[in-house]
C-alpha cells in the first residue's frame, strides 16, 4: 500500500465514526461500503470547492481545514457559514433542485476532504435501508441548522450572535480573519472589535 492509500483509509475511519454519531443504528458493513465510495480531494488555501452560479452534485466531508460559505451582493462578500473538521459542505440547493448554487465555498486553510457525488450516495440509499435512514437524518440535520441560522439572523442582536459564536465555535475564533467573522455576524469590523473588548 502506498502512503495515499493508507491516508485515505484512516480518513474513511474518521468519516465512519462521524456518520455513526448521526445514525448509531447504521449497519457497519453497509457503512463500510458507503465510506469506500468516497475519494480524497485536497484544496489549497483560497481554492474554491464550489462556485456560485454553477451546478454541483458533490458532497465534501472535511477531514481537516476550514471552509467559508459566502455570497456576493453589490460587490460585497457576505459570509454565511463556516464549515470545519467533521462537518459536511455540499451545494445542497443544486443537489436537490438541479439548479445552480447561490454560494461560493472557499478554503480558508489548506483543506483535506473526502468527496462523493450525491447520486452515488442515493444509489446506496436505495440499496440499503439503514443508509437511507442515515441519509434522512443527515438532510434533516442540515435543514434544521439552516433554519436555526436564519432564525438567529432575524431575531438575535449582533451581541447575542457574537456570544453564541464564541460559545459554539470558540475554536474558530483564532483561525478565521476578523473581517469574515464580522461579515458572518452582519456587523462592521469596528463593532466586532468593541464586542471583543467587552
Amino acid at each position: 500500500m502506498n502512503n495515499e492509500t493508507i491516508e485515505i483509509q484512516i480518513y474513511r475511519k474518521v468519516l465512519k465514526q462521524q456518520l455513526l454519531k448521526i445514525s448509531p443504528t447504521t449497519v457497519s458493513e453497509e457503512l463500510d461500503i458507503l465510506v469506500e465510495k468516497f475519494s480524497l480531494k485536497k484544496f489549497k488555501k483560497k481554492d474554491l470547492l464550489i462556485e456560485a452560479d454553477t451546478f454541483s452534485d458533490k458532497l465534501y466531508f472535511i477531514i481537516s481545514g476550514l471552509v467559508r460559505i459566502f455570497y456576493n451582493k453589490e460587490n460585497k462578500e457576505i459570509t454565511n457559514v463556516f464549515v470545519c473538521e467533521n462537518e459536511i459542505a455540499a451545494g445542497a440547493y443544486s443537489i436537490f433542485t438541479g439548479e445552480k448554487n447561490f454560494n461560493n465555498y472557499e478554503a480558508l486553510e489548506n483543506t483535506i476532504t473526502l468527496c462523493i457525488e450525491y447520486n452515488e450516495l442515493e444509489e446506496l440509499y436505495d440499496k440499503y435501508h439503514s443508509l437511507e435512514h442515515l441519509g434522512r437524518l443527515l438532510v434533516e440535520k442540515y435543514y434544521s441548522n439552516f433554519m436555526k441560522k436564519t432564525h438567529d439572523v432575524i431575531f438575535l442582536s449582533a451581541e447575542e450572535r457574537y456570544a453564541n459564536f464564541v460559545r459554539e465555535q470558540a475554536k474558530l475564533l483564532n483561525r478565521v480573519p476578523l473581517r469574515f467573522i464580522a461579515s458572518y455576524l452582519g456587523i462592521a469590523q469596528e463593532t466586532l472589535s468593541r464586542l471583543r473588548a467587552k
Partner: protein
Amino acid sequence: MTNTTPDTQKYRNQLKLNLLKICPDLNLFELEELTQKTSLKIIDKNEIFIKADSYSDSIYFIVQGMVRVYYEKEGKEITNVLLTEGDVIAGSYSYITGGKNFSNYQALEYTLALCISNQELEELYQKYHSIERLGRKIVERYYASFMKKTYDVLFLSAEERYNTFVQNNRALFNRISLKYIASYLGITQETLSRLRSKH
C-alpha cells in the same frame, strides 16, 4: 377537531397521488398503510394550529385549503411561507430537533388536512424503506424551497419577486388577501398595488 367522514377515503386517495409525485417508486402497500394511519383534521379559517414557541407532534398533509406560516417581530407579523393542497406541514424545526418552533401556522381558509403523529411516522420509517425515502425526499424538497425563498429575498428586487410569485402561484393569487402577499414578498401594500397595476 378530528373525525372520519365518508370523504376521508377520497382524501387519502388524493394524498397517495400527491406522495407518488414526490417519490414515484413508493411501494404501494407501504403507501396504503401510511395513508390508512392518517386521520382527517378540520381546521377553521383563521385558526392557528401550530404556535411559535411550542412543540409539534404531528405531520399534516393539506388536502384542501390554505395555510400561512408567519413569525412575529417587533409587534409585526411577517409571512414566510404559503402552503396549499399537496403541501406537507411538519413544524419541521420542532420535529427534527425536539426544540420549539419559530413560526405560527394559521389556516387562511377552511382547511382539511390528513394528519399523522410524528411517532407513528417514525415507526413507518423504521418498518419500510420506501416510506423512509419518501420522508427524505420531502425534507429535501422543503429544505430547497426554504433556501430559495431566503436567497430570493437577498438577490431579487421587489418587482422580480412579484413576477416570480405570480408565475408560480397564479392559482393562489385570488385566494390570498393582499396584505399577506405583500408581507410574503417583503414589500408594502402600496408597492404591491403599484406592481399589480403595472403588469
